[in-house]
């Protein structure tokens, strides 16, 4: 190792030159201290003319060390009853991106309450908390009006 430096602030990044001669390389690694942050989780219940009703949703996620994947889960059941078990709707691969925004949708039926939650995992395995649409501090039931 012939050179060494530290840059960055909120998350320190080390760079160094290792090896010798033509096999030298300049490499960098970052101290990832925190789980990803899931933000801007938004949803809308829509009824397109050409198809059945659905929930469209989107969310943003970021992580200083890079994102591995996000998991979206849903559950459904009669309103004001046990809403059922969470099942994975989709897993999104981020391939090391630092920031991502994702949109998707799933079909819904009238008279059914749907739960939605998202969490992200970074490249070193930190897991964010499950993020859910909330209203007044409580998880919101996604359902068709009327």
């Amino acid at each position, binding site marked *: 190792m012939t050179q060494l430096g*530290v840059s960055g602030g909120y998350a320190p990044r080390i760079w160094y030159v290792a090896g010798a001669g033509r096999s030298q390389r300049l490499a960098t690694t970052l101290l990832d201290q925190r789980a990803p942050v899931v933000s801007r989780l938004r949803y809308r219940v829509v009824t397109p003319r050409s198809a059945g009703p659905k929930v469209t949703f989107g969310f943003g996620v970021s992580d200083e060390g890079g994102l591995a994947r996000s998991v979206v889960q849903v559950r459904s059941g009669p309103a004001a009853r046990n809403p059922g078990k969470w099942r994975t709707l989709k897993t999104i691969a981020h391939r090391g991106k630092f920031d991502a925004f994702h949109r998707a949708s799933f079909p819904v039926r009238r008279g059914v309450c749907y739960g939605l939650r998202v969490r992200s995992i970074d490249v070193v395995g930190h897991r964010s908390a499950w993020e859910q649409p909330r209203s007044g501090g409580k998880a919101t039931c996604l359902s068709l009006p009327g």
Partner: protein
Amino acid sequence: MLAAGVVAALCVPIASATAAPSVRGPGEASTAGRWTEPATIAKGEITEVLAPPGYGRIYDETRFVWRQGSTLSSRLLRTKKVDVAGGVTAAAASRTALAWHQSQGSGEGVHLRVYRTIGSSGGDPGWTESRPMLLPETYDPAATPLLAVADDISALTSAVVYSRTTPTGVQLEATAYSTGGSSTTQVTLGASQVLATPGGHLDELAAEHGAKFIAVAYRRTATDGATSVVLRTSPVTHTVNELTWGPEQVVCQAPAGAAAACSQPTFGRNEKKQVHLFLRGPEGLQYRTVSASGAAEPVALGPATGPFAVMDASWAGDPGRGKSYDVDLSVAATRGNRTTVWRLPAAGPVVGTSVRTPGVRLLALGQHGTGRMLAWSDGTGVTTWTTNGVRQSPESSQTSHA
């Protein structure tokens, strides 16, 4: 002869951290985080890495600039390499600018590029549209060119300092430049001025921008072997042709044959943009506060038999979390198997923390939230220390590197 300030500095408390390294494996979790797998920025023989001048405002914005032989290259973490110039014999990166000596190719001379530091987005942000500029009309590079940039994000004049060979020897020159602000693409150059006339051997150079002045320090070795570090300062305004350099001030002198010569002038800047000049002198590591009128009396930080590193006061925003962190100007100096990290805030006492760093050969300082990160290498791997404890980076457990 050291002055009264020395006593004050030696009396400050040194908190001894019991930093017995609890060695961890690659990627292993610690209470303070995990290291990501090392990403390769460049392969092949690396001549020098210039300190990344674009501190990451967003996660992937840290810019790497390095030289492989005579080729100067740059990239961000997530972009492809861009060759900036060929025929490069020396390069210097600062907060907002990149300068290089070019001895062949499209234009011989000293070139300067200024980074756009605000308002960039996407692609390869940071470069301004300004073209590289040929500074001296009669360029003749020195055998080992010296180069430094004293810059600031303010609209005040900055300066590039470079060596040039004349018929009577190597001299130092400075050229002021102004961008008129961080978002401007035009670079206005002033007339070049001679800072040090030929005589002896010039081999070390540093430059810094204070709130309203520029400071330049260089080491000269006389023909009889005596070494000295010389400081020159000039006030700055918004006008590039108003640099007025004060007289040479010798801030360190060592006779020929002295066990420790004067060496490694290094500037550091605190949160008030007050400038300190650190150097290794016959009595060890010392610093002086520098103003537009020159350097104050030296303050001793004690013997430093190994490497030392300086980190400017810094500020870092935390995207996505709405936080920001400030860190004091810091200096780390190694003596034997221990390294002391000193904090030098604009107000308040100088405080040192001692860390065990066996076998240290390379040393670097950085920010870790509101604290500091010390990184060191014994030549085979990297170990880091932060206020949260000691851990090893992934590289440290891999195959030994000579």
